[in-house]
């Protein structure tokens, strides 16, 4: 068992190293948008009224307004704020993602500790999350996935800390970054539903305290989404009315099938069940010494099925909070995408699975700890994960 002091030192080392790796050479390869960054940077530049990058996808956007209207504005405002403060440089574009990617690791640690009260296990969960290449790549590009992932974890952390109002607020922020951020509140609902139902089965009584906490989180989220959207939209959106904005985004998400012919789609599309096989890698950028590959750590993603099976068993038998948390993340972040993909064959991409990775890491660390495996075996697993991380590391030399 690690002492509090040792675990704190190790956590600080992990966070510092991870931030270093995320912020390293963020300006490489110069003023060039990586993958969908072009859309978000164009939005940020248009909001600020600053010079656009070559190949601006919105050359006729109305000045001062966000042209990328299928996504909420908060993430783009964050990128714009960073540019306003730090100047229009690649570091400023991507620093919010690097910070969010580091916060993800801290939140995984805190969430794991809250559900297991075990420092070593919590460090392992954060460490495994840090070793995921897709997590690293998304922490190095000015896109929205990493913000949503951080806010989903923040929602869950606040909820298990018995701060349901803050959880509702974090969930609302997740929705204001990307509509798929609704996963945050779905995770909370799934977590509390499973916990409350188990309590009901065992005691034949409803826990009003838990139901009240859930109602507060959901209620605060429901009220905060339009309020925050109204606030964020007030100066830079085509939609002053937040409900109009939500209707546009919802109908866009619900109805859009494919606007471009298949041959014009450059990013490989995939279905949610393919993500478990780690196929249809996203080629973010290959240039010079950089090969930014959008792919998960096989040691994490291939563990999905055993982790979920193990979590189901543990949740049913013992009601372990960590197992419930793993299942809640899967239920809130993965199951809706599977259901959506079965209903409408709309485009989906491998990086949509990103918020599930902390769940798998949490599952591997917390559920794997009690297994009677030799310590060397567990260490070998972590070393193999580290090996895969190094294999997929984006830099192949000194820029």
């Amino acid at each position: 068992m690690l002492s509090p002091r040792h675990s704190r030192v190790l956590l600080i080392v992990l966070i510092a190293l991870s931030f270093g790796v995320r912020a390293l050479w963020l300006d490489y390869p110069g003023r060039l948008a990586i993958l969908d960054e072009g859309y978000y940077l164009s939005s940020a530049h248009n909001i600020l009224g600053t010079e656009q990058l070559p190949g601006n996808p919105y050359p006729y956007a109305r000045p001062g307004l966000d042209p990328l209207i299928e996504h909420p504005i908060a993430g783009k405002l964050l990128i714009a704020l960073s540019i306003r403060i730090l100047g229009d440089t690649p570091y400023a574009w991507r620093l919010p993602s690097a910070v969010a990617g580091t916060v993800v690791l801290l939140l995984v640690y805190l969430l794991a500790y809250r559900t297991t009260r075990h420092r070593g296990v919590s460090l392992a969960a954060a460490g495994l999350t840090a070793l995921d290449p897709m997590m690293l790549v998304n922490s190095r590009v000015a896109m929205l996935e990493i913000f949503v992932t951080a806010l989903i974890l923040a929602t869950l952390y606040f909820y298990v800390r018995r701060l349901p109002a803050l959880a509702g607020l974090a969930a609302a922020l997740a929705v204001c970054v990307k509509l798929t951020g609704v996963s945050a509140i779905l995770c909370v609902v799934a977590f509390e539903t499973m916990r409350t139902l188990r309590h009901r089965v065992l005691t034949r009584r409803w826990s009003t305290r838990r139901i009240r906490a859930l109602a507060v989180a959901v209620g605060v989220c429901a009220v905060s989404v339009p309020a925050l959207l109204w606030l964020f939209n007030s100066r830079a959106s085509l939609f002053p009315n937040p409900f109009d904005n939500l209707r546009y985004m919802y109908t866009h998400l619900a109805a859009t099938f494919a606007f471009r012919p298949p041959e014009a789609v450059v990013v490989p599309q995939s279905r949610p069940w393919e993500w478990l096989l780690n196929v249809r890698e996203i080629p973010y950028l290959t240039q010079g010494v950089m090969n930014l590959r959008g792919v998960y750590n096989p040691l994490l993603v291939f563990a999905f099925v055993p982790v979920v099976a193990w979590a189901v068993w543990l949740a049913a038998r013992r009601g372990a909070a960590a197992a419930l948390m793993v299942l809640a993340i899967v239920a809130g972040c993965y199951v809706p995408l599977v259901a959506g993909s079965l209903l409408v064959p709309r485009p989906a991409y491998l990086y949509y699975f990103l918020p599930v990775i902390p769940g798998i890491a949490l599952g591997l660390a917390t559920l794997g700890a009690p297994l009677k495996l030799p310590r060397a075996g567990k260490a070998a697993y972590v070393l193999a994960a580290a090996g895969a991380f190094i294999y997929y590391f984006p830099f192949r030399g000194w820029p």
Partner: protein
Amino acid sequence: MAVRPVLFAVVVAVLASACVNGPRWEATMAQARLQRDRGDYGAAERSLLDALAQADRLHPLHPYELETNTELARLHFRTGEFAKAKAALTRLVGKLETLYRSDHPSIGAMHGDLGRACDALGQVDEAQGHYAKALAVALQVPAQNAIDYLYLDMAVNAQRRGLSAEADALFARAEAAARQLRPGGAIFEEIRAKRGR
């Protein structure tokens, strides 16, 4: 206690009503284009109106709504139903002007089409206003927005308004623009024919 199921049903109904089956809309649009290309304009219009009814369940700025109205306007131009074409184009321009700056080439082109529709309906003064907006854009993207044909339409519009000097100047501009954009094209015949009226 019956309130909760009713509320739940209302929420589900509202969410479902705002859903459109994307593949079905795309299939309807593809069918409409096929019917139009076969010359079956009545059937094409029915298909497009069906697609528009589907798109109308979405947000007014949804791309399905924009694309359906564009196809409807094209079809009505082809069938000579200019009042219907004008209605579809007016809807479209309003939506596009919400989304983009007014110098967007599509907005300019649509003002040109609106001018043509108004001219065909005898609304020459309204047409002139649309042509002026179209010209402001076409001057920036002359080839893309076919500025030579725009000058030609403006010249005919000036003739109809009894402004022969203005018409002559516009015919001359149409000719000069056509010489740069499409030397030897059929537009020269058209200019001569319309000038001689």
